[in-house]
């Protein structure tokens, strides 16, 4: 029996009051319950043990079942849009009451719904219809629209007390059954009995009471008198915009608490350095953010550094950051909050930490902070940013941090760090930079993680043993990485096996495994380059359309693998005709094929190039050099 069938049966047993026992349970009621279940609100009322039993993210069915089995009897609330007192009051207006022993919410699903009783102060059906006239043709009760759509999309304003949330869209809210107003509803949850009410509902009731005050004789008389002086007041009251009554419904209230909680979570009163990162998942930028943080904390002290996650509440690879450095997930505290409040909150947080410097490493909110508030912020702290590469859109136009945001931020930045000399030269040249500005640009070679892997000579051994030629390719299956070129190369070299590691991170390419040539094998994700079977490959192929100095090329170089690589961005700073096989005609599959054939045609020469390369990267891309460069920079910044 399916899970939803199970709880539907339970609903029949639980919902039926003695008097209603003979009635057959309506499938409508099951459907209504489903529309109303809000897992996050329900979980907030459970003990931690109960939450653990339910799992991290139980679906609607699991929560509905738990509610019917346990929660209903305990008076827990499963829906943000059921406020027991409001239902009681409004039911009384219909000369109805809840029979003894019946759960109020289930009574509403069965009976209140039929009477079109709105059981919450958060929704006003007349207001909703008047302000969204398109809903006049809605086939059902308008509350149904709000429950199933309106509460998940920011444009639907449910009440004269406003939209009840920060105004930012959340594309997955509907799928998660997370109404946009939940952060407001759960604000100061410790001060409210969530079974009965919440910060949000108390606030909305306060607004409604204040609006009702306008009908008091004293205020009505004052309004009438003023309208004698100024008929433009449009008395009597006819208000088109929602009313606001702080502290409720004032975004600043929730944000002030989020800020205080964030500071507490961080556990540091003051730091020297704040590193702003967008999130932390598989990417070269996340790795650089980690090594930069490591170098900064080595130069100062781990408890003088705070890493702040600003854009997405994702921190998948904590190992990239050094132990002992505090990481603050600000992104999850900004849920539902629109601009410019997000930016202002980050500004307040940064200022409250009184850092000497703020370093932006691919954080969109961080770049926005610098470009829009950098003039003021740079008076109290040094601002720095890390640049990797620009991006290229489908029309071939360059965009990204080195284009627009850099231009708007440049005058506020004390330093600009770059992982490629090529990009530095390009920027200096583009802006015809004077030496004083140029001096703020610092090229740093991203250090390699220490690795003892050495596959020098494997190519020669495999060739003389007559093993089938095997090419390694590793990366994200994104448009940038040009996997389409790999496919063409495979078609042109049917005798060569290509082992491709990685997974699509951005969903901007179509990849159908069935359409691939037989000599490409998709090997799945990998955790660290040195975990790959490097001694079973002849060479590394790299095909990106644009990049800085890519990590995968450096790691390949470090291992001693011969490399064929597109000569884009910073790649030629590493892969030269002395150290590998750069491909300048980067869009041309035949050029890669030529390079691979040249490489295979002279295993001894390829091995010598790879050995030279291995030696150079071990010499030039060290943690020690990086740390001392960063330390020098920080020293300079403080002088």
């Amino acid at each position, binding site marked *: 029996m399916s899970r939803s069938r199970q709880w539907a049966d339970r609903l029949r047993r639980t919902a039926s009051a003695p008097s209603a026992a003979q009635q057959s349970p309506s499938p409508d009621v099951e459907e209504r319950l489903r529309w109303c279940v809000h897992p996050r609100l329900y979980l907030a009322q459970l003990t931690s043990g109960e939450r653990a039993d339910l799992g991290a993210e139980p679906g609607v069915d699991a929560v509905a079942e738990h509610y019917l089995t346990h929660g209903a009897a305990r008076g827990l609330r499963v829906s943000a849009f059921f406020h027991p007192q409001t239902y009681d009051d409004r039911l009384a207006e219909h000369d109805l009451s809840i029979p003894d022993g019946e759960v109020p919410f289930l009574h509403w699903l069965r009976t209140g719904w039929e009477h079109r009783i709105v059981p919450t102060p958060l929704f006003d059906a007349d207001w909703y219809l008047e302000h969204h006239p398109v809903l006049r043709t809605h086939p059902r009760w308008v509350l149904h629209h709000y429950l199933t759509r309106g509460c998940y999309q920011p444009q639907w304003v449910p009440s004269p007390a406003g939209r009840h949330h920060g105004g930012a869209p959340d594309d997955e809210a509907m799928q998660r059954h997370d109404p946009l107003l939940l952060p407001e509803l759960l604000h*100061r949850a410790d001060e409210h009995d969530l079974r009965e009410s919440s*910060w949000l509902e*108390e*606030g909305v009731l306060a*607004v409604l009471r*204040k*609006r009702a*005050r*306008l009908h*008091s004789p*004293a*205020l009505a008389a*004052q*309004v009438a*008198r*003023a309208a004698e*002086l*100024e008929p*433009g*007041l*449009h008395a009597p*009251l*006819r*208000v*088109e*915009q*929602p*009313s*606001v*009554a*702080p*502290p*409720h419904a*004032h*975004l*600043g*209230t929730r*944000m*002030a*608490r989020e*800020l*205080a909680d964030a500071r507490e979570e961080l556990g540091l009163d003051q730091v020297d350095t704040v590193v702003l990162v967008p999130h932390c998942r598989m990417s070269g930028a996340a790795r650089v953010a980690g090594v930069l943080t490591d170098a900064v904390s080595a130069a100062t002290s781990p408890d003088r550094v705070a890493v702040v996650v600003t854009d997405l509440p994702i921190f998948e690879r904590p190992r990239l950051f050094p132990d002992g450095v505090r990481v603050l997930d600000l992104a999850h505290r900004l849920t539902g909050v629109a601009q410019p*409040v997000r930016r*202002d*909150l980050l500004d*307040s947080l940064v200022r409250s930490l009184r850092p000497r410097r703020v370093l932006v490493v691919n954080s969109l909110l961080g770049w926005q902070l610098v470009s829009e508030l950098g003039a003021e912020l740079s008076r109290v702290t040094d601002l720095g940013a890390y640049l990797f590469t620009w991006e290229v859109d489908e029309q071939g136009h360059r965009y990204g941090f080195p284009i627009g945001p850099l231009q708007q931020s440049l005058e506020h930045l004390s330093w600009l760090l770059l992982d490629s000399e090529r990009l530095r030269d390009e920027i200096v040249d583009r802006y015809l930079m004077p030496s004083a500005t140029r001096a703020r640009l610092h090229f740093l070679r991203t250090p390699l993680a220490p690795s003892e892997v050495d596959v020098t000579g494997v190519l020669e051994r495999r060739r003389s043993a007559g093993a089938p030629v095997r090419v390694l390719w590793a990366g994200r299956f994104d448009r940038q990485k040009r996997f389409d070129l790999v496919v063409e190369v495979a078609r042109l070299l049917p005798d060569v096996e290509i082992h491709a590691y990685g997974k699509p991170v951005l969903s901007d390419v179509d990849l159908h495994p069935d359409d691939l040539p037989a000599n490409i094998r998709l090997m799945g994700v990998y955790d660290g380059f040195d975990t790959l079977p490097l001694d079973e490959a002849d060479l590394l192929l790299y095909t990106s359309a644009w990049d800085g100095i890519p990590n995968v090329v450096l790691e390949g170089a470090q291992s001693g693998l011969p490399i064929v690589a597109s000569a884009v961005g910073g790649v030629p700073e590493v892969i030269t005709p002395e150290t590998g096989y750069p491909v300048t005609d980067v869009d041309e599959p035949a050029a890669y094929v030529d390079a691979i054939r040249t490489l295979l045609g002279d295993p001894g020469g390829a091995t010598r190039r790879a050995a030279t390369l291995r030696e150079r990267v071990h010499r030039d891309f060290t943690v020690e050099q990086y740390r001392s460069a960063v330390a020098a920079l920080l020293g300079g910044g403080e002088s």
Partner: protein
Amino acid sequence: MTADVSAVLVATGEGPRAGIALHGVLDAAAAARSAGLAVEVVVLLADASSGTRAALGEAAEHGARLETIGVGELGAARNYAVAAATGRYVALLDAGGLCSANWLHAAHAVAEADPERTVVHPEVHWFYEQGRELYFPPDQADPGFDPAMVALGNCWDAQTFAAAEVHRAVPHPELDAGAEPGDLDWAWTRATLAAGLRHRLAPDTLSFRRRRPRTLR
């Protein structure tokens, strides 16, 4: 003679509607006088446009004292208004709005409880031209009120009633030309909280204005 209350109407480029604002102040002053208060009405022309000057040209004949300065920046004008006032309390009003007739004596009654620390606001802000809406400023004593919130958005405007001493202790910031409407009120709100003042509401009073400043949210 020292007045109990100076009601100062600050006028810049409002034009004819400044006459309505003056009418409102005169009515409120009359109501306060019948409640036993000594009230002076001051009209401050702050770099006023010719239309505004024309609208308020006969203010003196209605019993108002006319002051003129060449500065139109609102913070400076408000500070001048406080300096020019002789009353123990100062009610600051902009010529673009209208106060309810009970404003002066109702606000006075609230301020009297703690004159040195109180800033009084109307119970209701009624915005009537662009985006008609109601706004209810908070009473600082509301248990939900968190002073930290004003770092992220303003909640009080500066058309207030407070002791002249209070205004002198926390002068209005004088902002440069790039400031947006409402920035001045917001900056003053933050300064008053930092100075430990208390924002209170006068029940049954209203302020009518044409639109809500962007920063008041």
